[in-house]
């Protein structure tokens, strides 16, 4: 990483600042001259998109918090007041609720990219694990945020998810009443969820800082999965990655705006427009779409404790991915057999999501169980075995070669055969 230019402040003020708190230099070296592989494709823009969505959720969230009342008798109405009375309140609310969906969409794409191209492999294991931690924090934050409007789904999702902890032997019931702050989900629960929902996004910001730090230490992975060797293999972050990120961010925001302005309630559940009623459980309790695959795994196991453990394991197993995958080749581009299992995995994840929205009856149960078996088998059986037995395609000699010469060797041509005319 040495050799790229250092920050030369142009103005007297920046020279003064640079000596005292070198933020200018940090931004310059991290986001302007920082070298990135020249063959990055658009799947690499989702990190930047996620950073933008985190900022958007924090901004809209802080502003919504100015009008929300976290008390069981007022919460639902305060949200309705935001929708009807607060200037642009409808917009801020829909931005925040649909923003959460977009946040998870980007996160899942970002993770699938990592799995396809082997971005979790050495030396990026810690980067990957920080990402798993970020996913966990996002799941917690999203869950607590959904409780705040205090609709039917808010209340009953809170009841179901907090009740998961009662599966823990011996301590389960105490843990649940500790979480609730009472004998059931109620006002203490709402208050503490509000506090933590405000807090966790800033914890996420901190972990994102670590995540980007870990990334910059190892450097980006790239679609070929081979490390940059020379300066020819990389380009400066600004303007290349900056513009690529900005472009796909704009496209992403078009999708975001489509939901917010045309179909703002499409991803939500209509039952959440009914004020919470502790006496009546809705016919079909379902979480938001981004939790559905995990929900399907939970319901697929007929035993309470094992179901909860499977739910936890389905997320935690991701942290072990760098060691479960034994292949020396990073990118699925050069792993034809892995590629097929990967796409089946993607279909299984989407399928589990769809099954999570269905009532747990009949054939849905059978298919959910089959998919759950594949989900775990992918990590515990397929990946370890594949690394040993798969015949991978030959890797290119360098990134530059794979981009500029389309696989043909670059560099000095072979010497002419003996006897040929020069």
């Amino acid at each position, binding site marked *: 990483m040495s050799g790229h230019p250092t920050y030369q402040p142009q103005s007297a003020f920046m020279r003064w600042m640079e000596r005292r708190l070198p933020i200018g230099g940090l931004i310059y070296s991290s986001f302007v001259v920082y070298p990135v592989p020249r063959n990055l494709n658009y799947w690499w823009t989702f990190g930047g998109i996620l950073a933008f969505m985190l900022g958007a959720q924090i901004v809209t969230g802080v502003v919504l918090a100015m009008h929300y009342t976290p008390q069981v008798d007022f919460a639902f109405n305060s949200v309705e007041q935001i929708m009807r*009375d607060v200037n642009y309140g409808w917009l801020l609310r829909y931005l925040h609720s649909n923003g959460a969906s977009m946040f998870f969409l980007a996160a899942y794409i970002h993770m699938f990219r990592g799995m396809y191209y082997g971005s979790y492999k050495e030396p990026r294991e810690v980067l990957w694990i920080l990402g798993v931690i970020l996913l966990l924090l996002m799941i917690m934050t999203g869950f607590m945020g959904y409780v705040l409007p205090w609709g039917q789904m808010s209340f009953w999702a809170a009841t179901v998810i907090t009740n998961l902890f009662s599966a823990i032997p011996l301590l389960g019931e105490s843990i649940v009443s500790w979480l609730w702050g009472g004998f059931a989900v109620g006002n203490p629960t709402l208050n503490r969820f509000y506090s933590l929902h405000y807090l966790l996004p800033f914890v996420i910001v901190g972990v994102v800082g670590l995540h980007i730090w870990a990334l910059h230490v190892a450097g980006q992975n790239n679609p070929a999965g081979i490390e940059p060797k020379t300066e020819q293999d990389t380009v400066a972050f600004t303007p290349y990655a900056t513009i690529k990120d900005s472009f796909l961010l704009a496209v992403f925001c078009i999708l975001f705006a489509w939901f917010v302005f045309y179909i703002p309630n499409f991803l939500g559940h209509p039952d959440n427009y009914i004020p919470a009623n502790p006496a009546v459980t809705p016919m079909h309790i379902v979480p938001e779409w981004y939790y559905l695959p995990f929900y399907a795994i939970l319901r697929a196991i007929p035993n309470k404790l094992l179901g909860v453990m499977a739910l936890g394991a389905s997320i935690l197993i991701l942290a072990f991915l760098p060691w479960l995958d034994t292949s020396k080749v990073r990118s699925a581009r050069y792993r034809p057999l892995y590629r097929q299992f990967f796409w089946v995995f993607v279909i299984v994840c989407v399928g589990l999501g769809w099954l999570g929205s269905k009532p747990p009856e009949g054939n849905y149960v059978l298919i959910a169980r089959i998919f759950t078996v594949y989900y775990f088998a992918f990590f515990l059986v397929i990946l370890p075995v594949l690394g040993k037995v798969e015949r991978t395609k030959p890797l290119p000699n360098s990134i530059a070669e794979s981009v500029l010469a389309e696989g043909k060797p670059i560099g000095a041509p072979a010497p002419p055969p003996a006897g040929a005319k020069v």
Partner: protein
Amino acid sequence: MTTMSSAEPTRRDFLYIATASVAGIGAAATLVPLIAQMNPDASTIAAGAPIEVDLAPIADGQVIKVFWRGKPIYVNHRTKKQIEEAVNVDVAKLPDPQPDSARVKSGHDQWQVLIAICTHLGCIPIAHQGPYDGYFCPCHGSVYDTSGRIRQGPAPLNLALPPYEFLSDTKIRIG
């Protein structure tokens, strides 16, 4: 990045400027709802609608306190003595010169409607107190007369008047 120096603006220059302009407009547009949401919302504005006060139950010499837009308002049924004391004053010598006639509605000079917020730092002055039997602010000792005008103490201005009108001899609308 290659730099091109040329006398003619290029397509690239146009694209840069166009993109930056659209981004700038977008950024400004994004700020609008974020800032506007802090303005009073529709329910707060509705709660600030004018109120009607019935004057009939207010006895001679009695002061009542009502609220409008979150501010306390004194409705004072002044006695004849109080009205005389308010009128017989050398206006030029007052710290904030204002004749009593400018502080009441003509034909209704026994009714005084004031915003009960001391013009010094905002405490509520107490009615029927102080050397002029007007208002006295306990926080820093400002003294107002029977017309609500500042006489002594740190307050710079007379007590403010809310917008109000007489709907009949016994009813006013404040706001």
